[in-house]
């Protein structure tokens, strides 16, 4: 919404208030000023000239040679391409040496053999809007020959406002002026809406108005005017419209637009002759559209309507989409001599949905889609009739046609100044509160500290006591409230819900992985197979996606991480280690809340395609998973061979803890990497943190720090090459050998002498008894038990 400083100044005295100050005050009180721009600047050198001669140029189908003078001197020749010139026209003339607001400097120029002295200007060339359809024509009432154009178009400042969605009142100069008046403490001079005398035959004899559903239209008021002159609206009206970016298109429409921009009430003007039938009374009905009813709008586009949309029909034919756009065939034109002017209030929800469904937004609909006050209906109409009388000298026909009515006024809002002070956190006396509210045109009743407040009718956003608190707070200024902190009356509870994000990140970052954040939305057509915990689960689809590339919810973290691998590899990285913590989205049974597992994904990509090298990286990722489990799970974590969608069939392990599968680790299937055009081998893991990892992690159990020497024995065994160490260690742990302090593999060996399909492990066993020094004999016995457990679990044979 654009507002003009000069227009605002017609309602609130702004002398001594700089535009920067206006912008600041409005911004701080909620109407954000996005931009402050000068309007009609740099027009001092452009002068008012008169066309005294005009002829078509030779060899041109569109250029004219105009003789222009600006005083008693001889006229000069100016070449011009505009179609709207005539002899006698008063026009803006930029003579040689003039610099236009755009910075263009004019000189003498030869065009088709004729010397042209400067140029005649269209509005856009003068910075007066965007109109380039013809030269700006000035009326002798407004402009005198030789006068600088800056005298005709005094400089103005235009504010571009971002109006809050609950403030329909601020979509008007009146509303913004009301805000400004309160901000700077000066009185508001509201637009004159006092009645004017009426003339002619009663409108009721020509038109009858009916509302079919008053829930969709509470009041409809129509005024009639006949005998319209052809004169344009006066310059001051057109100047204000131009300043805020509205084209001037003739007196009636200009005045209707003017009232909308000034008061906030959209008006619609119908050509009365066009909507009247053959004699008799024209029946205007506000009704829902018939299914399939068609209407060609002012923009020339024909639209198909349906029963959800509200229309204005005249003698049975839809002639406007209510509150959105009128029909082409009933529009006011240069030939219109009589009009019907609609001022109405429509249900904002209806206008909003119609405007959305038609994909059609107009100045009117952008106002009607918010809750406008019905009281603006008579006020806007009265303002229009007054301006018609004052500016073009046409009186309204006696008695407007009215259907529906105004709602009963709401009871006053009651609140005490203590409540206001208590919520704002600063002392506001009842006097001060009343002063602020009255400056916003609220009427305030007082009983000690108790206030009973009635907002002005335009303020549809104010209905509750808390709304009054906001009004007082924002006008008093939040900068006047002292900053405090709420007292902490009880210590915050310890909450250990959710995965231990930080601890996981610390461990992963320590292990050389870079933290990533990827989008939760993925391609709705994922190229299979997608590696991850979700396995074969279908992804949840977005019903209204922006694109198919963001059309589904991810089931896991790995597609996003592989995407990041692709990007980094394309940018020249050879080794890429990434991890992400975030939600996956898994379908539940129909109707139930979808599942949101907390997932941790790891990828480690090396550009080399080397099986041995990637086996080494796989081992490190296993170690990382092990470390996470050991640190953050309440239970032991082990690995067992398994198969998982999207992973190498034989290089894949499941992470098991507490008897449940908590994750998958492996080399990513080559089909997946190939689909992403990744070079090299990707080692990946996806873990499900919820139910497995907790911030507290494993309960800490300290060991007794034995002072006796440990007994260290090695145990060398032969096992099948695919034996699982996890199973072996679990079997050893199951023995519960109290003296066994530590067991680890210190050497792995493969060689022909072991035999086909076998490998060697050297396990180092550390025994410790805090009460005695263990003898070799005791150690041998314990080692024997362990060897037996190994044999039973993995088929190990002592070497």
């Amino acid at each position, binding site marked *: 919404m654009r507002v003009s400083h000069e227009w605002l100044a017609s309602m609130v005295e702004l002398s001594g208030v700089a535009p920067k100050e206006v912008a600041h005050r409005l911004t701080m009180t909620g109407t954000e000023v996005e931009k402050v721009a000068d309007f009609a600047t740099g027009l001092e050198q452009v002068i008012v000239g008169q066309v005294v001669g005009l002829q078509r140029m030779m060899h041109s189908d569109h250029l004219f040679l105009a003789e222009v003078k600006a005083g008693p001197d001889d006229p000069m020749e100016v070449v011009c391409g505009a179609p709207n010139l005539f002899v006698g026209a008063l026009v803006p003339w930029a003579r040689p040496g003039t610099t236009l607001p755009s910075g263009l400097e004019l000189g003498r120029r030869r065009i088709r053999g004729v010397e042209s002295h400067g140029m005649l200007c269209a509005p856009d060339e003068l910075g007066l809007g965007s109109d380039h359809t013809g030269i700006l024509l000035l009326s002798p009432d407004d402009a005198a020959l030789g006068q600088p154009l800056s005298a005709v178009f005094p400089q103005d400042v235009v504010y571009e406002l971002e109006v809050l969605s609950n403030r329909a009142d601020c979509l008007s100069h009146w509303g913004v002026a009301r805000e400004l008046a309160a901000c700077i403490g000066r009185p508001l001079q509201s637009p004159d809406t006092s009645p004017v005398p009426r003339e002619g035959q009663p409108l009721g004899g020509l038109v009858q108005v009916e509302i079919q559903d008053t829930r969709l239209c509470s009041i409809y008021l129509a005024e009639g005017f006949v005998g319209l002159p052809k004169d344009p609206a006066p310059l001051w009206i057109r100047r204000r419209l131009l300043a805020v970016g509205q084209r001037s298109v003739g007196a009636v429409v200009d005045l209707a637009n003017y009232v909308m921009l000034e008061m906030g009430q959209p008006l619609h003007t119908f050509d009365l002759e066009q909507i009247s039938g053959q004699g008799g009374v024209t029946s205007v009905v506000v009704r829902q559209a018939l299914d399939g009813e068609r209407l060609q709008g002012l923009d020339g586009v024909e639209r198909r309507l349906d029963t959800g949309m509200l229309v204005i029909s005249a003698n049975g034919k839809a002639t406007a989409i209510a509150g959105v756009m009128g029909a082409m065939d009933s529009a006011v034109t240069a030939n219109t001599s009589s009009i019907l002017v609609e001022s109405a209030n429509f249900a*904002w929800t209806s206008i909003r949905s119609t405007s959305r469904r038609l994909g059609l937004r107009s100045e009117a609909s952008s106002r009607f889609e918010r809750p406008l006050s019905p009281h603006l209906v008579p006020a806007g109409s009265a303002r229009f009739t007054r301006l018609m009388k004052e500016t073009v000298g046409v009186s309204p026909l006696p008695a407007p046609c009215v259907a529906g009515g105004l709602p009963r006024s709401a009871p006053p809002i009651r609140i005490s100044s203590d409540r206001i002070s208590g919520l704002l956190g600063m002392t506001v006396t009842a006097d001060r509160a009343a002063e602020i509210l009255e400056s916003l045109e609220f009427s305030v009743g007082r009983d000690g500290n108790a206030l009973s407040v009635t907002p002005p009718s335009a303020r549809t956003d104010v209905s509750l006591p808390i709304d009054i608190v*906001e009004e007082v707070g924002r006008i008093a200024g*939040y*900068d006047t409230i002292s*900053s405090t902190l709420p007292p902490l009356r009880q210590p915050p509870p310890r909450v250990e819900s959710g995965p231990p994000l930080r601890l996981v990140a610390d461990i992963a970052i320590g292990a050389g992985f870079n933290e990533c954040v*990827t989008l*939760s939305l993925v391609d709705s057509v994922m190229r299979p197979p997608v590696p991850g915990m979700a396995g074969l689960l279908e992804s949840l689809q977005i019903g209204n*996606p922006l694109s198919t590339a963001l059309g589904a919810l991810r089931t896991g973290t790995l597609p996003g991480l592989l995407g990041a691998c692709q*990007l980094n590899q394309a940018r020249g990285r050879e080794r890429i280690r990434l991890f992400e913590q975030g939600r996956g989205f898994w379908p539940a049974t129909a109707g139930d809340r*979808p599942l949101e597992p907390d997932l941790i994904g790891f990828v480690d990509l090396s550009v080399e395609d080397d099986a041995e090298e990637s086996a080494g990286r796989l081992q490190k990722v296993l170690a990382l998973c092990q470390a996470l489990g050991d640190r953050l799970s309440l239970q032991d974590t082990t690995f067992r061979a398994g198969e998982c969608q999207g992973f190498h069939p034989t290089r894949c392990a499941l992470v098991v803890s507490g008897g449940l599968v908590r994750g998958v680790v492996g080399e990513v299937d080559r089909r997946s990497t190939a689909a992403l055009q990744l070079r090299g081998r990707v080692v990946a893991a996806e873990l499900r943190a919820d139910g497995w990892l907790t911030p507290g992690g494993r309960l800490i159990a300290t060991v007794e720090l034995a002072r006796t020497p440990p007994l260290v024995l090695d145990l060398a065994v032969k096992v099948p090459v695919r034996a699982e160490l996890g199973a072996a260690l679990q079997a050893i742990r199951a023995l519960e050998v109290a003296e066994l302090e530590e067991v680890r593999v210190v050497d792995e060996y493969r060689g022909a002498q072991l035999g086909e399909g076998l490998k060697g492990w050297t396990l180092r066993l550390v025994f410790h008894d805090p009460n005695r020094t263990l003898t070799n004999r005791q150690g041998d016995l314990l080692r024997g038990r362990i060897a037996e457990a190994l044999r039973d679990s993995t088929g190990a044979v002592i070497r």
Partner: protein
Amino acid sequence: MTGDDLQALASRALEEIAGAVDLDQLELVRRRYMARHGGLITSVAAELGGLSGPARALLGREFNSAKGTVVDALAERQVTLEEERAGGGLADEWLDLSHPVHHLERGHQHPVARTIREIEDIFTRLGYTSVAGPEIEDDLHNFELLNMPPEHPARDAHDTFYLSGAAVGWLYRTHTSPMQMRTMLAGAPPFRIIVPGKVARRDNPDPTHNPVFHQVEGLCVDQGVTVGDLKGTLEHVARELFGAERGVRLRSSYFPYTEPSLEADVACGICNGIGCRSCHGKGWIEILGSGMVHPAVLRNAGVDPDRYSGFAFGMGPDRIAALRYSLRDVRDLYENDMRLLECF
């Protein structure tokens, strides 16, 4: 053995140490005098056990002195012999600073995750608890209970992704505010929580928008909480995040779930409030929306608005990260280019 004998023994040891020509000889000398079992000097310790009184004290002192002298001399001679050793002496070993320093392979934090952690730390110090909420929500919690009935104009700014198929009726939360409601419905005041997490809006990606982004919601509800408390809290947070010298301002705004509603701006880091190209001439950059929790919202959450009041706010860590780390395009945060990640 007397003290004199001990001194003589020590002198002999010192002579032999000085006479040792290589490390092997020196080792023989060490064993002769200082071997744990049977060394000529070390075995005197056993003799001490048989003495008592002043004699024991006297000989003990002599023993410690002699032993110390010999140990020092052995060490000194050892270093000398090592340095003299032909070819590979210590003089040929040096810290080679001409060699490039090895890169320690560590990972890096993501800027958004890092920002969220900082915000969590700031609020934890103020007594808030960080909680997580579901990212898939229903209309009731995302909108209706937050005073946004269907067709509410404020829903325009929350262009929503709706799920289809078996999950029809669910939506991706457009803000972290539903967790306000869930927290209040599940407990009793006072409440002091923040809710970091992902949200999604159907905005086409551009340098300042991403369809998926993060928010950190905050909620403080207690008796007597004021706009002044909101102001003090937000100013503190803004200064913690952007530095104590940066200006902060609160201006009036509108959200359906708060009343009064306020937006917080920080002064532009380049022009500090004057207006420049980087802030589009405004001088201020919006960092969060906030307000006093609307009485209707408190009532929907089962909290009596006549007894309790509170404030809520929602900030965008993506935007805050972009501002703090001078990133021109928020989409860069989701590319995960390692060149960017390695800066953190």
